[in-house]
């Protein structure tokens, strides 16, 4: 089976434009929490968010395409490609939805015309088609919408296209913007932690929502050349409940196990886990149970990075892969910001200090609403 090399990474996050900006912040132990200025909310003073600087981008719905293309250009620059290298590539995009773009459109129209006009709420597939057109991509174009695992699943779908030889290159995008709808929805579900994300902490009480765009350029390649590789992964559905995981973590465990099989690895091969670690009671309880069950006493070190970047929902697959791999390339594993007090019920605790990047495979987990789970394995040179 052909190896899949990670040729380029791109990131626009609350740290700024570029993977390096996020890595710099995470190395310094700074969270990317920012004031919320995009819009106002009645509960604004009771939440923490990660908003990126919108000044460099056009207002309204056009903002989304520009930000996506900014992240892509960084990935292409790393790979030393221009757009012509993408002609026969696949473009696979993951997002929970583009409701945030509809909101941006509405706010822009209201601000410029004084008219409150319901925007069309265009189909989720539009952005991928626009980006493909702009970059001259003639290969397959797909959009995956599987809640918080969307862009992790986009990485898996791209892996399939590459392994089957349908394309030689695939550009995977994760995109999510802050939206009144998402923040209000999570607030209604009482799932936002006023103190921000505290993964696996005894006092955790919910999420910290963020916006970001991640781009990952993949290419089939000979593993002997060195570099970073996407080794494989898996997706499974937990049918326990629409919004909460099986408390025993059984489906999360099964997803991680299947991912290991797909990558040709054993649990003992894993040197680090990037947990989903949303900071919600349910997720972290189930995820801890799953990790304990699968790895037992040999649980590798694990970290959660959502206090740095926010929970970027459908984008977190590509965004967290780009940020974490950026940190590994810079030689370190970021500790779990927001974690201070172990939860005795979980019986495990994440990394609290930065440590040198390990040499072995790294597991990345993503668990979403609708029981949609994805687990990925990467190798860092």
């Amino acid at each position, binding site marked *: 089976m052909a190896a899949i090399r990670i040729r380029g990474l791109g990131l626009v996050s609350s740290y700024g434009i570029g993977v390096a900006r996020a890595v710099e912040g995470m190395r310094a132990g700074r969270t990317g929490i920012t004031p919320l200025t995009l819009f106002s909310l009645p509960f604004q003073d009771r939440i923490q968010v990660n908003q990126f600087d919108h000044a460099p981008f056009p207002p309204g719905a056009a903002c989304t395409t520009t930000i996506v293309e900014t992240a892509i250009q960084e990935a292409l620059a790393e790979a030393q490609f221009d757009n012509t290298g993408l002609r026969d590539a696949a473009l696979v995009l993951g997002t929970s939805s583009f*409701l945030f773009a509809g909101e941006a459109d509405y706010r822009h129209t209201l601000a410029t015309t004084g008219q409150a006009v319901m925007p069309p709420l265009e189909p989720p597939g539009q952005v991928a088609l626009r980006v493909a057109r702009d970059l001259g991509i003639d290969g397959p174009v797909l959009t995956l919408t599987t809640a918080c695992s969307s862009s992790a699943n986009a990485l898996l779908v791209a892996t399939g296209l590459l392994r089957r030889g349908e394309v030689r290159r695939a550009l995977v995008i994760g995109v999510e913007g802050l939206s009144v709808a998402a923040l209000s929805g999570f607030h209604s579900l009482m799932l936002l932690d006023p103190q921000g994300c505290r993964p696996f902490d005894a006092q955790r009480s919910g999420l910290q929502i963020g916006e970001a765009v991640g781009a990952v350029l993949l290419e089939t390649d000979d593993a002997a050349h060195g570099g970073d590789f996407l080794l494989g992964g898996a997706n499974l559905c937990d049918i326990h409940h629409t919004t909460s995981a099986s408390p025993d973590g059984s489906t999360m465990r099964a997803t991680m196990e299947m991912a290991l099989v797909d990558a040709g690895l054993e649990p003992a091969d894993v040197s680090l886990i990037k947990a989903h670690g949303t900071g919600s009671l349910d997720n972290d309880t189930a995820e801890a149970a799953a990790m304990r069950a699968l790895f037992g006493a040999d649980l590798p070190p694990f970290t959660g990075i959502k206090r740095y970047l926010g929970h970027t929902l459908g984008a977190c697959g590509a965004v967290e892969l780009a940020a974490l791999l950026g940190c590994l390339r810079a030689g370190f594993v970021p500790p779990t910001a927001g974690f201070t007090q172990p939860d005795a019920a979980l019986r495990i605790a994440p990394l609290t200090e930065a440590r040198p990047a390990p040499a072995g495979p790294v597991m990345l987990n993503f668990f979403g609403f609708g029981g949609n789970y994805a687990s990925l394995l990467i190798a860092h040179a």
Partner: protein
Amino acid sequence: MPRPVYIHAAAALGPHGDITRMERRALNGDPPPLELKERVKEIVGVPLRQASHLVELAAVGSQLCLKRLPYPAPENTAVYLGTGLAEVRKNEAVFRQVMPPGPGLASPFDFINAANNMAAFYVAKLGNFRARNLTVTQEEFSFEWALHLAAADLRAGEYRQVLIGGVDENSHPRIGHLRRIALRDDQPMGEGSGWLVLSAAAERACGELIEVKHVARGTEPVQTLRDAVRIWRRPEEPLTLLPGLRIEAAEVEQLAAALPGLRVQDYLGFCGGYHTAAAFGIAALFDAPAAPGLFLHLNRDSSGRTMLCAVRVFQP
């Protein structure tokens, strides 16, 4: 040539709530809003109290398909769902709740149901499927790409069985709906749910998914069809073209003229125009009594890409 993928069951739910050939009715305008509570009771068997209309469409279509399967579907059945507009009504409801002059807070149930993968979750939950579960939302090719990925899983041996559907809902009024999907003035806006159970096993199959193909830009559609006929058509086998949503009448005429013996079947006249109408068109081929033959579904997206889907319906 790709390894065959077999169709073991199919079901199509149309915009009138129609599920059999006898119940299909040609549309002569936009269908009235579809009430599915009775169909849910009859086919799903459990109430879906807080579910969205899209979830109801998906649940009825997928459960009907599973009921037509001559054996119980295993737990390890992967679910692929294509939807062009996804949860458009719930997304609009949440938008109106949170944006001025709305009340400013989202209803928790509306928010949960606005998640675009909730329909695929319910399909898996009702079927007790603890396997791969993917929702593809790529406009006109949402169903075709879901079908392509499902077939690839079967061919790679990753799954022995897959439940694959295409589901879309319309929204009212028409003028608002047309801001999301381009339809001609004479084209009714449709909605529906089309499902197939695909398997790697030939035994008990009612048909075959021969290929789902992304046609390279610059390739003439007539050449694509000629190649398909040359490779796949058996001697004397009836050959039918199913023109998809974006294939205009003039092009259909041109294709029919270029391929002698080609019949044309207009399924859109029964389900209306929506992104995943292809799922209805293909699943409805298996409405009893099914007519055997080779069926080629051709479709295009708004960027001019073309996809071909080749299906064989077996002699019952």
